């Protein structure tokens, strides 16, 4: 568990650095890919809701610090995203091929809408038209990132379900 936490922290740290320094400059039809979100959702799918929520909080905090944004803003959104997709992974999404793609597609849209609403609530000026116009590009790029990122995360965090099952075996009769 501790090793998983350390690996997750390292992975998200690298993802935040790549996001802040590199990927935010790569735009397609007005939108940039969100590597942190895709990495977080992959982690949450494989490690569950609590892991997802904590990882989301940490990654969000890192992003808020790096962007010098309002502290807690991204943390709140990513905590909820990690928790929700973690629950999805714990319940219906297990072993389903489309789960990562579906998770990333849906959460990307909800994340952007949530960010707009939250900024509106906080009274921050937000160019909602421009952000929404770039949303298809963000969704597309995130979906492109999903399969390689999920494959990498799955390799680093192999599903523990098989081990858990074996642990609960009892001989009958």
């Amino acid at each position, binding site marked *: 568990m501790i090793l998983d936490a350390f690996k997750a922290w390292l992975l998200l*740290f690298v993802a935040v*650095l*790549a996001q*802040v*320094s*590199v990927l935010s*400059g*790569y735009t397609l039809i007005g939108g940039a890919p969100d590597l942190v979100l895709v990495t977080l959702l992959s982690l949450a799918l494989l490690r569950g*809701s*609590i892991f997802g*929520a*904590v990882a*989301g*909080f940490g990654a*969000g*905090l*890192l992003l*808020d*610090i*790096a962007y*010098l944004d*309002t*502290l*807690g*803003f991204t*943390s*709140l959104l990513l*905590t*909820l995203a990690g*928790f929700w997709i973690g*629950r999805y992974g714990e319940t219906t999404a297990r072993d389903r091929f489309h789960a990562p793609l579906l998770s990333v597609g849906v959460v990307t849209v909800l994340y952007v809408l949530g960010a707009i609403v939250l900024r509106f609530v*906080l009274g921050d000026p937000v160019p909602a038209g421009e952000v929404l116009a770039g949303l298809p590009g963000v969704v597309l790029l995130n979906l492109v990132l999903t399969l390689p990122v999920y494959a990498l995360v799955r390799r680093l965090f192999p599903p523990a379900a098989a081990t858990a*099952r*074996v642990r*609960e*075996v*009892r001989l*009958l009769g």
Partner: protein
Amino acid sequence: MPRNRTVRAAVLGSSVQRAAASGSSSTRSSALRRRIVVGFLVLLSLTLITVSFRSSALDPVQGFGASVLRPFEIAANRVSQPFNDAFDWARGLVHAKSENERLRAELEVLRRETAEAEVARQENAQLQKLLEYRSSPRFPGDYRAVAASVMANPTAFDRSITISAGSRDGIRVQDVVITAGALVGQVTKVFRDVSRVMLITDPSSAVTALDASNPAAVGILEHGSTPDSLVLNRVTKDKIVEVGDTIVTSGSQAGDRFPSIFPRDLLIGKVASVGQSETDIFKTIQVEPLVDLSALRSVLVLVPKKRGGAE
């Protein structure tokens, strides 16, 4: 479970379900733990937002965090620089085509505007000359001038122009058309708002003209061998005509049986060459028109102040 499950897998599977069903208290505690953790994190986030939004208490913390992250960001930037350059290069290639098309379109617009401006400049210069001529003493006193713009210039097959003035402006057939004091031709067709003008270079045109330096050298000005050239015919060999002399309209001479429709002393052109042969009793005089009759922009129609009884 997968479809090709084995007996062992089926047993294991059912064991998992039984364990889950029997451990309802652990499920409940797990759900409670989940709620506590996520509730705490959400509450912490909201607290951070509130504190960060309402005061600057967290600024030092954020500044410290940013300072810690800075070297890593710089390193990431350096590592990714070649990839960024490659991406920018590729993006530049993609955008180059659309930018090229946009610049071409802009260039086309600018060329058109430049051409329009040049046309306007030339037209302005011609109108200025017309205005100066109209108020000069050389302008024939028995006429009033009707200004008109040229709507259609002559072609290789038709040495006529169409002008934007017609019967509504008082123009009639055979009215004389000039530009800045130089003869252009005569009106051959009149409509309400437009007229057709036969140029002096038309094969059907004939104008009585003379050498301004030697008024005794009178002849008939007709079209030459090329579309824009003129020939002064019927000048006898005993008359002196030099190259460079100015040819003007002679107007009606005293005692003429058929008076000329052209007022006298309208400029026509310069003598380009003079020749004569032993077998011909007239000189061969080539005349170069003073104005480029194939590129007229505006003209003046000389409308007689007192029309003759023919109307």
